[in-house]
């Protein structure tokens, strides 16, 4: 991917949930890296493990979930920290969360605490990491509110979440996330819960932040269309694994994996904005409880072959910087 040393590098990450129904292999061997100031798009249908991957990077996996394997390496100037080995409640990960890595969530309506003022919630985020006075923190919070395009930031500072619209709340969440100048911003479907016009505004804002703050972004979405104008690189996830990864142009111009092509088919054209979620892929995501045999996509794949049901294709390069997990793209299976 990027030429520079990666900022964050995830290696063979496995996150399992031990529930009464069995073990859910939510993330089942994922590798990716994000270089400084680059944006990685993570795409996949609901339930494929995108949010769990993001939470793992934040060190936010809690019982019944557990990181059973792999590394999450955060590179600093002089050292490398493996987030997957840190105590999720410990001091070290708390110094990283909200400071070096920040996150915004899918549901702006419920992600802000309803009983505290917007401004105070941002001030709290600042004071948790920076040794500055309360007054200074307030000034910074007001500036941040202005920077994310919230009109009358001083008044908004004093308001409670219920007094803001969904789009404004998401902007406030973004302001909070950017408050300590994180090196990596994880955006977990930040526009999914918003109206289409508001979606476009928030996307514009994210793009502007990308330019102005020089932050690396992990942008999660179930909608490939959203990625196009945003990401430098893209990974496509299916059933807790990455099935294709490539630079964004490559993904759009030469998609290799049948699943990625299926997702392309479900990008709505302007004509059917109203009827979204039209899926071109038959069937549903299988249960993550099931034991994996062969290619995870085989039950839904229009090109499935004999070998697909017995052997695991594994992620292999199909072109420089472009990998896919599919037997269709192997020289001789």
């Amino acid at each position, binding site marked *: 991917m990027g030429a520079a040393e990666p900022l964050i590098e995830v290696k063979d990450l496995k996150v399992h949930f031990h529930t009464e129904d069995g073990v859910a292999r939510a993330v089942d061997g994922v590798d990716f890296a994000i270089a400084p100031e680059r944006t990685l798009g993570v795409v996949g249908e609901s339930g494929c493990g995108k949010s769990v991957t993001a939470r793992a990077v934040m060190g936010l996996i809690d019982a019944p979930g557990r990181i059973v394997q792999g590394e999450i390496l955060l590179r600093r100037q002089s050292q490398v920290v493996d987030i997957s080995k840190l105590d999720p409640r410990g001091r070290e990960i*708390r*110094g990283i*969360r909200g400071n070096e890595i920040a996150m915004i*969530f899918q549901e702006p309506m419920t*992600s802000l*605490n*309803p009983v505290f003022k917007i401004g105070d919630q941002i001030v709290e985020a600042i004071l948790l990491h920076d040794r500055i006075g309360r007054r200074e923190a307030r000034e910074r919070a007001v500036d941040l509110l202005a920077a994310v395009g919230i009109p009358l930031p001083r008044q908004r500072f004093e308001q409670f979440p219920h007094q803001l619209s969904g789009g404004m709340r998401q902007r406030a969440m973004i302001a*909070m996330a950017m408050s300590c100048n994180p090196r990596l911003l994880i955006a977990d479907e930040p526009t999914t819960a918003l109206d289409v016009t508001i979606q476009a505004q928030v996307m514009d804002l994210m793009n502007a932040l990308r330019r102005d703050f020089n932050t690396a972004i992990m942008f999660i979405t179930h909608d490939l269309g959203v990625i196009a104008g945003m990401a430098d690189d893209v990974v496509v996830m299916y059933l807790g694994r990455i099935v294709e990864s490539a630079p964004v142009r490559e993904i759009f111009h030469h998609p290799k994996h049948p699943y990625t092509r299926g997702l392309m088919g479900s990008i709505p054209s302007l004509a059917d904005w109203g009827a979204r979620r039209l899926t071109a892929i038959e069937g549903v995501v299988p249960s993550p409880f099931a034991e994996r045999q062969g290619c995870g996509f085989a039950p839904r794949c229009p090109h499935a072959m004999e070998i697909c049901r017995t052997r695991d294709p594994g992620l292999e390069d199909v072109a420089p910087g472009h990998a896919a997990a599919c037997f269709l793209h192997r020289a001789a299976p």
Partner: protein
Amino acid sequence: MIRLIVGRLLFMVPAALLIITFLFALFHLIPGDPAVMLAGDNAPRSVVDGIREAYGFDQPLHIQYGRYMAKVLQGDLGISNYTRDPVVNSVIPRIINTAQLAFLSMLFAMVVSLLLGCVSAMYWNRPLDKIVTIVSLLGICTPVFVTGLLAIYFFSIYLDWLPISGMSSWRHFILPVITLGAFQAAVLTRMVRSCMVDALGKDYITTARAKGAPELLVVFKHALRNALLPIVTLFGLGLGHTLGGSVVTETIFNWPGLGRLMVNSILTRDLPITQGSIFFFAMIFILVNLIVDLVYAWVDPRIRYD
């Protein structure tokens, strides 16, 4: 917010009228002649007739109702059959005694249940949570009179540390307050725990953790402040129960409160006192409800700032 306060205050008026009506009905629905009841079973006819006339029992019901309503609204709840003192005079000091007992018990229950409930939720499904759960279930299952008698046996008779009855010093308060508060503490611990577990599962908790907030801040600021909304209501209900439950505790510990006054007045058929006690109990309940509503509105910015 102002609108809410005014509305709730106005609501007290019909509630009070309804209570007075109920008390009037109570007096007249009880089988037997009220004049005989006031005069006593063995009083001569002439006395009974005198009372009937003096109290207006010979008048039609609606006139009696109007008179009774007017008297109560002027603060006149009648005269005790026995002491011949105005009911208000014997009820007011009793209210103060009961209020002291109930509020202290509730304070005890609130502190204990907030602490144990939060700890329980923090260690959800782990050994500490299970221990708290077992102890609170034991507390819920034990009737107040059993707790009270056990406490008397252990602390007063066996250890001889604390007085058994009366309320002449702060040491007299300890056993009744704990006896009455323990049950509420047990009930409320369960409820605080479930409110806190609920709050800790919310998205804004993930946001707080994602900011890098330490767990104590997450639990005691972000979660508790939200859980406080349902908890305030539960505490209000608890205070109501504590006031009602004080009857048993007052009887066990010989506490000169409103509950014991009411029970005694029923035993001695001192109906004006019974009426007066019920009237004040009811008024206290309404007042508690009002306070709960106001605190709730104050705690929830969605109500406070609308």
